[in-house]
């Protein structure tokens, strides 16, 4: 657009400049920035030409000399391309695909070995997730930056509508069924709100208290509505939201991204975190004592073989028997004890014992029969250790750690502050989920609902986490071509 404005001011000038500017532009691979660069160079050439003309040179000579002063168009273009090229990060993309492949292979194994046909739908979500990752990778960062306010409003609006429906539904039907259906939506919105909330904070970074007020208001609203809707079912996502948002906000303070004195900002940060934590604790409909005991002292609250406290006790006991390589060695009696739960519950009634044994031959009890229900989702790491041994599990965990290590390295390389904070928050969200999942798999389960990003629970989790990782990779990809405006908002070159 600017180049056209310049043309109007200097009739005929543009024609002469055109081949030079085109030669420069052709070297720049990212086409959306070409016009802006051409415009800047055109203004320079015209200024120089005007000076020469003012010194008495003829129009054509002035023009020629101004172009000559600029130097070699190709060299300039090549060097400008260095500053404006899209950054490729194939290693990170390959590692994310490797993680998804671990999840897909797990699903295929379930279909083939355990004949669970239902896991076809899981594969479908993996394919959707990979497609969404590609879309986010190519468009996510720029779209988020441009529409960040709208995204926050949509997240709050959807949660608000769900809250309304929740109250109406509670009057009409059972709360439980509604909670199950809304779990996925709440989980996804909570995690996706993390970069959106931090993006809003960054856009208001020069307005002293506003970033803290915005983060407090948005996080408190989202987490309290989510807690009301799903309670302890998505306790981990509530916690991930709070931890990720406040860790990233602290990161912004430490890196000097917010205006004002750091000491005062830390004070605001503590006040904001305290407010959100208080709102969350008060709005949480579950029992905190129960949640903490389930995580750290499951034996205190275990009541029957169906609850998660028992699962933690069971897997801790089994992990203690795992070997470096190979399936955990268990005697026939041990298998019987674990399968019927009689190893832990001394007062197990006869009905339960007979009920369980009617499905199994006591000589043919497998590891999969012993493990908690839904082990294929909730205890994937535990299963690797017990089925293949510690060493193969460590290798798989090594791949996962390498992927996260590469993601962290990628974030550290992002120079654009907005991109850095968004990528940081997305990667932190993935890491926190993995930490909670790992804790659960070692027998320290917090809350009810836990996911292993890219690997387990291939429904809502895979899509949400692919959006997050796609956004982080996208921030790195467009790091050199998306810029910040002087007024504090983002100006995309597209």
């Amino acid at each position: 657009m600017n180049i056209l404005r310049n043309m109007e001011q200097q009739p005929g000038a543009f024609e002469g400049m055109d081949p030079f500017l085109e030669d420069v532009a052709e070297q720049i691979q990212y086409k959306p920035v070409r016009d802006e660069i051409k415009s800047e160079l055109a203004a320079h050439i015209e200024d120089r030409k005007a000076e020469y003309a003012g010194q008495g040179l003829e129009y054509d000579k002035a023009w020629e000399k101004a172009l000559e002063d600029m130097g070699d168009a190709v060299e300039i273009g090549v060097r400008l391309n260095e500053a404006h090229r899209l950054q490729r990060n194939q290693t990170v993309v390959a590692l994310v695909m490797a993680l998804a492949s671990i999840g897909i292979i797990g699903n295929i194994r379930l279909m083939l070995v355990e004949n669970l046909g239902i896991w076809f739908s899981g594969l479908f979500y993996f394919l959707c997730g990979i497609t969404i990752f590609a879309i986010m990778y190519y468009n996510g960062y720029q779209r988020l930056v441009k529409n960040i306010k709208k995204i926050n409003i949509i997240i709050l609006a959807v949660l608000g509508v769900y809250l309304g429906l929740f109250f109406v539904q509670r009057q009409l039907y059972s709360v439980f069924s509604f909670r199950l259906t809304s779990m996925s939506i709440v989980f996804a919105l909570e995690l996706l709100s993390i970069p959106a909330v931090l993006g809003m904070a960054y856009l208001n970074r020069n307005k002293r208290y506003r970033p803290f007020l915005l983060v407090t208001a948005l996080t408190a609203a989202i987490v309290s509505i989510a807690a009301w809707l799903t309670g302890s079912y998505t306790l981990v996502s509530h916690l991930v939201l709070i931890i990720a948002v406040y860790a990233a906000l602290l990161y912004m303070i430490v890196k000097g991204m917010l205006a004002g004195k750091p000491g005062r900002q830390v004070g605001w940060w503590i006040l904001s975190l305290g407010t959100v934590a208080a709102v969350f604790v008060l709005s949480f409909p579950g029992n905190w004592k129960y949640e903490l005991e389930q995580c750290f002292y499951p034996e205190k609250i275990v009541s029957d073989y169906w609850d998660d406290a028992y699962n933690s006790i069971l897997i801790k006991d089994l992990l203690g028997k795992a070997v470096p390589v190979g399936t955990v060695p268990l005697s026939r009696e041990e298998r019987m004890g674990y399968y019927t739960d009689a190893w832990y519950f001394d007062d197990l009634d006869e009905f339960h014992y007979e009920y369980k044994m009617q499905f199994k031959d006591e000589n043919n009890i497998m590891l999969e029969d012993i493990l908690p229900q839904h082990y294929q989702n909730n205890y994937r790491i535990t299963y690797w250790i017990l089925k293949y041994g510690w060493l193969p599990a460590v290798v798989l965990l090594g791949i996962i750690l390498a992927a996260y290590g590469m993601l962290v390295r990628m974030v550290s390389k992002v120079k654009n502050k907005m991109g850095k904070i968004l990528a940081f928050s997305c990667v932190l969200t993935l890491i926190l989920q993995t930490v909670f999942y790992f804790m659960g798999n070692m027998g320290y389960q917090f809350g009810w609902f836990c996911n292993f990003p890219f690997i387990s629970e291939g429904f809502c989790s895979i899509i949400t986490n692919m959006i997050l990782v796609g956004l982080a990779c996208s921030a790195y990809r467009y790091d050199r071509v998306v810029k910040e405006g002087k007024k504090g908002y983002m100006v995309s070159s597209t």
Partner: protein
Amino acid sequence: MDKKLMNISISMLLLRLLEEQDRYGYELIKELEARSENVFSLKEGTLYPILHTLELEGAVEGYEKAAETGRTRKYYHITKKGLKLLAEKKKEWDTYQKAVNHVIGGMEYEYSTEYGTAAWGF
């Protein structure tokens, strides 16, 4: 001068000029030429990759502004990070300059600078 060294010193000089006030590319070139008595008379197009790299690093911010003639120009504004970078570059340059002077001027240079003369080894 070595190209890389030239770029480092030019980026330092550009930051110094922007420390005074916001400027556009052509203005920077003119100012650079005038103050260096045409020593820094580089091919003008090569200024922009340096400016754009500084912008990428967050040392300067670009914004568009219409000039009195109505022509739209891209101005550059030095950021806090740019000021910090300038201070670092100045320090590096001082170290470099001293080292070169020591080698070229030897002990005589040190003696002469100690007594306040600007002469090189005389």
